[in-house]
């Protein structure tokens, strides 16, 4: 029973099937992956320019202070194509990277790729834990603050977030070490002041695992506080932007509970700019990891980079730069894919 007298009066665009939707997301994914590859390539160019072109002769610096024969120098130059023209060097550079050869470290005299593999896990552990905690807590704080904006919770939460955001995260780490690691006044220094493991504990045993977790308490707290300040501010501002939208009035008019209007409608839409902004600031995650590892002497990629500064160990720096950038590109890709899943408008 139709209430419309003449349904055919206005021609309807008939797009009956739901198939286009699936195709839409697939092509969106393809596009984003291509974009990521493009960024990767650009980054490799920058990397090459920065570390090959600007500094001096690696063979000489590596061989400094040791007896090195001309043959060894020649062989070294050949592997890394140092006698070739610039474009050819770049090709060799790319070939080496594909094979996992990132050069030799000046300090440790070991392949850079080896060093990176050894140090990868502590960094992932530290950054991974902090990011997850910070996202969960930060998003929650942002939502509560925005929905009851101007209230006491909002004022305190926003003020704290702004202050934490204005703080160098490593300085917060220093304060935590001084306060809870070393202890001052009446506060006991119960936490370790650095490192990932106690010296006489087997890291693979249960005791070792607990020991590692205990060592990670302060650094994870530092990073989590630094990240969550930013995430809660982002979530809050995104949700505030959604508050004036018309569809929220429709939702309330339907008789929905306030919490459902907030979560199912407002927050669901606010997640879109939040994802974008968090993706834009992933560099912040990386820099936080570098500085906090340095301060807490966690043997990860960050400490590797900062240790390489003084030498200067260019090839280690190049390697960590590569890994960090590739990580950011990957994280951005993931964020883009999540966005495409959340927002149907970009898929079709």
């Amino acid at each position, binding site marked *: 029973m139709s209430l419309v007298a003449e349904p055919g009066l206005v021609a309807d665009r*008939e797009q009956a099937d739901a198939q286009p939707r699936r195709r839409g997301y697939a092509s969106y994914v393809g596009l984003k992956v291509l974009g990521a590859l493009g960024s990767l390539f650009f980054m490799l160019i920058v990397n090459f320019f920065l570390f090959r072109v600007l500094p001096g002769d690696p063979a000489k610096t590596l061989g400094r202070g040791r007896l090195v024969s001309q043959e060894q120098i020649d062989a070294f130059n050949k592997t890394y194509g140092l006698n070739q023209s610039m474009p050819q060097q770049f090709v060799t550079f790319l070939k080496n990277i594909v094979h996992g050869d990132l050069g030799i470290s000046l300090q440790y005299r070991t392949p850079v790729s080896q060093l990176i593999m050894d140090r990868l896990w502590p960094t992932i552990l530290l950054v991974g834990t902090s990011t997850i905690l910070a996202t969960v807590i930060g998003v929650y704080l942002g939502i509560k603050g925005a929905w009851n904006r101007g209230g006491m919770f909002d004022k305190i939460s926003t003020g704290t977030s702004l202050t934490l955001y204005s703080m160098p995260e490593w300085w917060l780490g220093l304060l935590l070490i001084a306060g809870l690691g070393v202890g001052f006044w009446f506060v006991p220094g119960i936490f370790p002041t650095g490192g990932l493991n106690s010296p006489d504990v087997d890291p693979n045993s249960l005791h070792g695992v607990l020991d590692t977790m205990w060592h990670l308490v302060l650094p994870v707290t530092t990073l989590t506080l630094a990240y969550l300040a930013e995430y809660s501010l982002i979530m809050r501002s995104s949700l505030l932007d959604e508050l004036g939208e018309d569809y929220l009035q429709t939702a309330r008019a339907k008789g929905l509970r306030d919490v459902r209007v907030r979560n199912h409608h407002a927050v669901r*839409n606010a997640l879109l700019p939040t994802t974008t902004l968090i993706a834009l600031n992933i560099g912040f995650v990386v820099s936080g990891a570098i500085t906090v590892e340095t301060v807490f002497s966690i043997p990860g990629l960050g400490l590797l980079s900062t240790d390489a500064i003084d030498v200067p160990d260019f090839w280690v720096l190049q390697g960590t730069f590569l890994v960090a950038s590739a990580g950011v590109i990957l994280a951005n890709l993931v964020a883009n894919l999540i966005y495409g899943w959340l927002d*149907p408008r970009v898929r079709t």
Partner: protein
Amino acid sequence: MSTATLLAIRDLHVSYATGEGPLPAVRGVDLTVERGQIVGVAGESGCGKSTLASTVLRLQPPSATVSGEVLFDGHDVMTMRWGELRAVRWAGASIVFQGALHSLNPVHRIGAQIAEPLLVHDPSLGRRSIDERIEALLDQVGLDPARARSYPHQLSGGQKQRVMIAMALACDPELVVADEPTTALDVMVQAQVLGVLSGLVRERGVGMMMISHDLSVLAELCDRITVMYAGRVVEEGPAGKVFSAPIHPYSGALSAAFPRVGDPAARFSPAGLPGDPPDPRNLSAGCSFAPRCPRAAEICLRAEPVLTTHLDDRMAACVRIGQPDPLREPTEVAG
């Protein structure tokens, strides 16, 4: 079936709190809608009609101050308990919002959005019966039921508006408030949407409050029309009469703004009304329409006119009705 009036708004005042002082949007409005009746509310933007509509379901912003009564089926919406109000929302009365472009959530499918109030008001409904209901609703407004899987951005303006109507009917409300349902639609789609709405009333006995600045649309569809200006009612009466023989000068101007096809005189008469609606914060003591009124006289500036009954079954708020025009011959517009 209850015998109480479906909707009775009594002496409603709504004022918004702004940084520059209180802004009175509605200043003492009475309105009635009976079951099976269509009441039109006409006026320019800013006259308070949308605010009026939002009060029916107590959707005005928290910062607004409200006094008066909004009686839905005899119960005052303004003082209802939260649980009662939520039950009334959508299941008792629903609203078709202005500007459907943004009244639908862009990230959820149409079907899910229509199903939502169904699930809230009757949690016992199974998946199958909900899907059937959605199909039936979409069919009633002339949309392909497969549309349920579409997202709002995949629909045209007219289609979205029809989705809003289907959604408004989902819980079988007794009252539907349609706020500018045909603005921003082209003429063909407008005709179709109006057809849907009139069919609603005829076949289901739903009461309707229809808001528009387009008096000709209201005249076609409604039983009675209320004309608002600057937050007050300036004229009220049967739809046809208000449109063809308005009493209040403002209604006259509104009516004249829409030339009738086949009327040669209408092609040559000036259609617009000079000036703008008054700033609600700076209302003068007298009639708020006086600055723009072609029939204004000195007496109009003394006090705000009261709504009084003129001819049988018609009301208007003007002191100059029936008085001779000192400057020119009274036109056939003035009663």
